[in-house]
């Protein structure tokens, strides 16, 4: 009978090397990708089948705002941008609530304390604003979480009524992104409510089974 554990240990380094080489062969990025909006039209797998009219207006306005004397990088074509508008799908707040609220047994790092530091760091990086969490409030929060439904949102589960009661979900997002891309409707169909407030470039949204927000008033952000 062959002693596999012995072989495993002997070949571990060699196997790691082979794995690394295989990954490098298969996932070698191009030396440099240039930013060419028109060229992206060929990406059928990532094209948007529907262009949301209101969003088109918002983004087109952004293109038109572009100062005419701004230096253009090679390959950047402002006229092409208007025709290339693509929208991220709008996140489903019901799914987000259920994902976060039913998350099984968060690890210790996700419990209060770690949550506030990570969230603050994330929002400072992305939105240029800092969330302020009082220690008493931070103890009620678990997270941060991320969700494929809303990848750029920073999420926390909040337990304002104690750990055994239904949680609320707090989503923090840069206000510009929230105003153009997030649909806050339709959560009422599952008996959920949502409430939002904006502080210094950050929009905080509370998704809750309760009739009133429980944590929003205890969270503030400053630019």
């Amino acid at each position, binding site marked *: 009978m062959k002693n596999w554990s012995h072989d495993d240990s002997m*070949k571990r380094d060699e196997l790691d090397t082979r794995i690394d080489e295989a990954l490098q062969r298969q*996932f070698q990025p191009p030396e440099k*990708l240039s930013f060419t909006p028109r060229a992206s039209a060929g990406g059928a797998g990532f094209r948007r089948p529907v262009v949301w009219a209101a969003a088109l207006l918002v983004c087109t306005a*952004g293109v038109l705002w572009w100062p005419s004397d701004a230096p253009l990088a090679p390959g950047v074509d402002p006229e092409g941008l208007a025709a290339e508008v693509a929208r991220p799908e709008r996140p489903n707040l019901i799914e987000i609530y259920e994902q976060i609220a039913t998350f099984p047994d968060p690890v210790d790092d996700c419990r209060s304390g770690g949550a506030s530091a990570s969230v603050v*760091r994330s929002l400072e990086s992305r939105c240029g604003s800092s969330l302020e969490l009082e220690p008493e409030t931070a103890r009620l929060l678990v997270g941060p979480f991320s969700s494929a439904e809303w990848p750029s949102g920073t999420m926390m589960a909040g337990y304002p009524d104690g750990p055994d009661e239904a949680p609320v979900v707090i989503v923090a997002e840069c206000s*510009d992104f929230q105003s*153009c891309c997030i649909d806050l409707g339709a959560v009422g169909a599952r008996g959920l409510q949502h409430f939002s407030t904006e502080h210094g470039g950050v929009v905080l949204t509370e998704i809750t089974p309760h009739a009133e927000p429980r944590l929003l008033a205890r969270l503030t952000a400053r630019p």
Partner: protein
Amino acid sequence: MQGTGEDGTFMGMASASPFDFEPERPITPHEFAEQFGAVSRSLWTLAAGIAGDASDADDAVQEAALLAFQRRAQFRRGTNFAGWLATFVRHVVNNAGRKRTRRATHAVDPDSFAGLADEARAPIFAIDERGALREGSGAFDDEVSSALSELAPDARACLLLRVVLEHSYAEIAAILALPEGTVASHVHRARAALRERLQHEARVTRIR
């Protein structure tokens, strides 16, 4: 390879120092293109890692760049440009994945399964029956790719950024907005999972 500042941002591409403008002035298209060029390989690897497939990474990065470009007024100078762009890459790849899942739920010609079944039965082994690594890269690459697809997207992305681009844990953490410890754990566990999977295949091969 770029260095990482104390605040986790990429030095030389996210800091304000290369561009001597007023702090509140939005990033210009030229600056956007320049900074995008500096991080494009990281974004491509991130897209391939989240998707578990390199074939659509080019398109994903282009679309993410377009979305970010349209919202470039949101970007604050001195903050993490790579991490900001990475949120768009994640969104684009995840949206594409959901669409593929939806499109997959339709009728398929049963005859088309025949070839796939034969293909699935064909053995592809990374390690030979004596436990020695098999010569040739094709079969091994396929097996690594298959094992990689079973990892969680963040774990794949961390592993690829580490192995392919040799990013430090701090650099990966800045891109993915994850703690460094989490990144290190993802890389360690992903390596272990691949190793285990490939060794397991060898055992299965021998039993057969």
